[in-house]
C-alpha cells in the first residue's frame, strides 16, 4: 500500500520532469545534442575499433592458420631436414620450409620469399595471379612479383630485376608473373612488395642449399597448439617458436593502445556531455527554486525533489543515448564509406548490440551522475529560503 503510494508520488514527479523538459524545448534539445555527440563518438569509435581488431585477427588466422613458426637465431640457419621431423609430430597437419629475406630494389625495400611452389597460396592468402605464370619446382632464378612491386619498379613479365639482399648481396631474378593480394595485414610485407621464388632456386642463388629461415607449422586443432609447441621446443631447444596466438596477443596489445586512445577521445566528448547535463540541471534548479519551496510547503520531501531533477537528467540523457546510438551507427557506416573513397581499404566495422547497450548505460549513468550534485543542492534548499528566492 505504502509502496503504491510512493510509486504514485514518483509518477507525478516524473510527469513534472517531463513537463519541465517540454516547456524548455530549446535547452533540452541542446543538452540532448551534447549527449548525442558524445555517445555517437563512443559508438563509432568502439564499432570501428572492434572491427579493426576482428579484421586483424581473421587475417592473421588466414595468414598463419592455426600453428607455429619455427625460426632460428640468425637468418637462414635452420636445416631444411627438420621439416621431416616436425611432420612426424602426430598433431601437425602440415609443415613446410620458407626463406624470408629483406632486400632492396632500386633503393626501395622489398621482400624475397623462397617457398615450395605448392605452398605459395597457403602462405600468401588472398593471392590471385594477374599476368604470366605461377612458380614451378624447376624454376631457378624465376620469381613472381606482387603487382605493387612491379609497378613501383616499372617491371614487366619477362624482364630481369636485381635485388640487394641482406644475405648474398645483389642477385638477379627473372620475373615470370605478377600477382595481386587482397588488402590485408600481409600488409606490412605486402606494402614492401613481395617477390616469391621457388625455395630450391632461392637456396641455390643464395648459396644456402639445405637451409631455410623458418618452418611454418600448421596445426588443425587449436587446442593442440600448446602441446605441439612443447614437443617442438623439446626437439629443437635452440629454435625460436612463435605461436600464432602470441602474434595475435601482441597485435591485440597494440589494438588495446589504439582503443585506449579512441576511448580517451570519446571520454572527452562524454565529459562535455556530462557538463552540459550538469549545467542544465543547475539552471533548472535555479529557475525552479521557488517551486521547490512550494513543493516542500505542500509536503514534498527531499528525495521527492531529488527524484524530480534526477528524472529530468535521466530523461535528457536517455534521449541523448538513443539519438547518440542512431547517429553513432550512421556515422560508423559513413566513416566506412569515406575511408573507402580515399584509400582502397574496406574498413570492417562491427556494430554489436553489446556496444549499443553499453553506450545507453554510459549515457544514462553520465546524465544521472552529472545531475546528482545540482539536484542534491536543489533538493536540500530549505523551504523558506526557496520561497524567498526571486
Amino acid at each position: 500500500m505504502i509502496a503504491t503510494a510512493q510509486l504514485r508520488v514518483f509518477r507525478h514527479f516524473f510527469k513534472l520532469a517531463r513537463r519541465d523538459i517540454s516547456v524548455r524545448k530549446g535547452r533540452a534539445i541542446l543538452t540532448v545534442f551534447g549527449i548525442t555527440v558524445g555517445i555517437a563518438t563512443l559508438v563509432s569509435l568502439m564499432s570501428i575499433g572492434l572491427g579493426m581488431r576482428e579484421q586483424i585477427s581473421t587475417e592473421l588466422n588466414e595468414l598463419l592458420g592455426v600453428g607455429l613458426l619455427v625460426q632460428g637465431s640468425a637468418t637462414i640457419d635452420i636445416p631444411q631436414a627438420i621439416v621431416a621431423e616436425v611432420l612426424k609430430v602426430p598433431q601437425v597437419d602440415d609443415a613446410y620450409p620458407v626463406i624470408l629475406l629483406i632486400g632492396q630494389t632500386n633503393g626501395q625495400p622489398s621482400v624475397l620469399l623462397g617457398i615450395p611452389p605448392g605452398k605459395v597460396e597457403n602462405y600468401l592468402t588472398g593471392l590471385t595471379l594477374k599476368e604470366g605464370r605461377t612458380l614451378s619446382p624447376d624454376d631457378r632464378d624465376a620469381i613472381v612479383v606482387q603487382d605493387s612491386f612491379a609497378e613501383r619498379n616499372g617491371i614487366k613479365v619477362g624482364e630481369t630485376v636485381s635485388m640487394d639482399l641482406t644475405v648474398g648481396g645483389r642477385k638477379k631474378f627473372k620475373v615470370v608473373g605478377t600477382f595481386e593480394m587482397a588488402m590485408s595485414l600481409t600488409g606490412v610485407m605486402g606494402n614492401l612488395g613481395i617477390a616469391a621464388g621457388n625455395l630450391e632456386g632461392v637456396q641455390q642463388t643464395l648459396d644456402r642449399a639445405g637451409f631455410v629461415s623458418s618452418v611454418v607449422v600448421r596445426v588443425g586443432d587449436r587446442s593442440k597448439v600448446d602441446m605441439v609447441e612443447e614437443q617442438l621446443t623439446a626437439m629443437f631447444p635452440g629454435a625460436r617458436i612463435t605461436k600464432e596466438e602470441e602474434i595475435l596477443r601482441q597485435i591485440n596489445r597494440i589494438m588495446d593502445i589504439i582503443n585506449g586512445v579512441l576511448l580517451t577521445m570519446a571520454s572527452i566528448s562524454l565529459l562535455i556531455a556530462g557538463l552540459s547535463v550538469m549545467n542544465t540541471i543547475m539552471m533548472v534548479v535555479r529557475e525552479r527554486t521557488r517551486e521547490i519551496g512550494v513543493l516542500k510547503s505542500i509536503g514534498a520531501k527531499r528525495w521527492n525533489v531529488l527524484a524530480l531533477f534526477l528524472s529530468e537528467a535521466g530523461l535528457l540523457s536517455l534521449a541523448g543515448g538513443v539519438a547518440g546510438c542512431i547517429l553513432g551507427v550512421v556515422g560508423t557506416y559513413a566513416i566506412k564509406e569515406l575511408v573507402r573513397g580515399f584509400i582502397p581499404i574496406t574498413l570492417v566495422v562491427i556494430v554489436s548490440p553489446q556496444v549499443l547497450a553499453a553506450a545507453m548505460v554510459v549515457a544514462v549513468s553520465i546524465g544521472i551522475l552529472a545531475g546528482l550534485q545540482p539536484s542534491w543542492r536543489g533538493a536540500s534548499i530549505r523551504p523558506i529560503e526557496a520561497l524567498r528566492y526571486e
Partner: protein
Amino acid sequence: MSEYAVELQNVNKVYRLSPGVEVHALRGVDLAVGKGDFISIMGPSGSGKTTLLNIIGTMDRPTAGRVKIDGVDVTDMNEGELADFRCIKMGYLFQFFNLISTLDAVENVKLPMILSGRYTEREADQRAGELLELVSLKETVWRNRPVQMSGGERQRVALARALANEPALIIMDEPTGALDTVTGANVMKLAQMLNEFSGQTFIVVSHNPLVARVAKKVYYIRDGKLYENPPESLMKFESELSSLEKRALFVNQLRLLKESLLMLEKRLESGDVSRDSYAATKLKIMNQLERIKTGVESSQGVVASN
C-alpha cells in the same frame, strides 16, 4: 487533544547576518489560537510578520521557544517529519499564488493529495474537482495552466490546493496582495465561509483592512513583539516604518543639515551673507540638528530596549 490549533511559547528568532550583526525578528512571542479561530496579524514591513507565519507554518524554526500545532510539538521535528506534518495539517495560500507552472488546475490541487498517500489517482481526481467547484472555479479553466488563468482564478486554485488534505490550519500570507479589491474580497469571503462551515483555523497576515474585518481577532506585530491591541506608536505617521528605517531617515536629515551649515560658513567667508543673517540661520540649523539628534537617540533606544 489540545483545544488550540496553534500554541507559541516564548518564541524568539534571531538572524545572524554576519558575525556580530544580529537581527531579532521575533522577541518572546506567546500566542494561542483556538481551533476554528480566524485571526489576522497586521504590522509594518520588517516587523517580523513573515517570520512568525513561517514558524507557525513549520517552514522555519525558532531560535528559542516551543511551537505546538494542533496539539503536536513540532519544535524538534526533523525535515522529513515536518514535510509529512505540513502535508496533512497545513494549507498555505501565498500572495503570488505559487502554483506549479507546468501543472494545470486539477493537477495542482491533486499534488498534496498524492503526496499524502491517502488518495488513489481516481479519488484525488474526483476530490480535486469537488474542491475546484467549492472555490467556484469555472470548469472551462480546470485544464488550464496557471499562465492561462487570471489572478483571481489562480488564487482560487491555490485555495483549493490548500484545502486538499483537509488541513487543521490554513495559513495565508497577503492572500489579497496581488488581487484587485473585488477579487480579493471574494477570496476572503470564501475563506470566511470555509472557516464557519468546516471549522478550519485560519491565520492571515495582511495589510488589507478588509482582511482584518473578516478575522475574528486581530493581532499586531511590531519590532518582533506581538500585541493584542495596536500599540500607540502604530497610530503615528512613522508607524509604517520600522525603527531601522526611521533611523536611516534621521541620519539622512542630519547629514543634509550638516552640509547646509558648511555651505553657510563658506558663504560667510566669501562675503555672500552678512554676519547677522549668518548667526540667525546658524541658530535655526543648530536647533533642528538638536531635535533630530534626540530623535536618533530615542530610535536607537527602541532598538536597545527591545
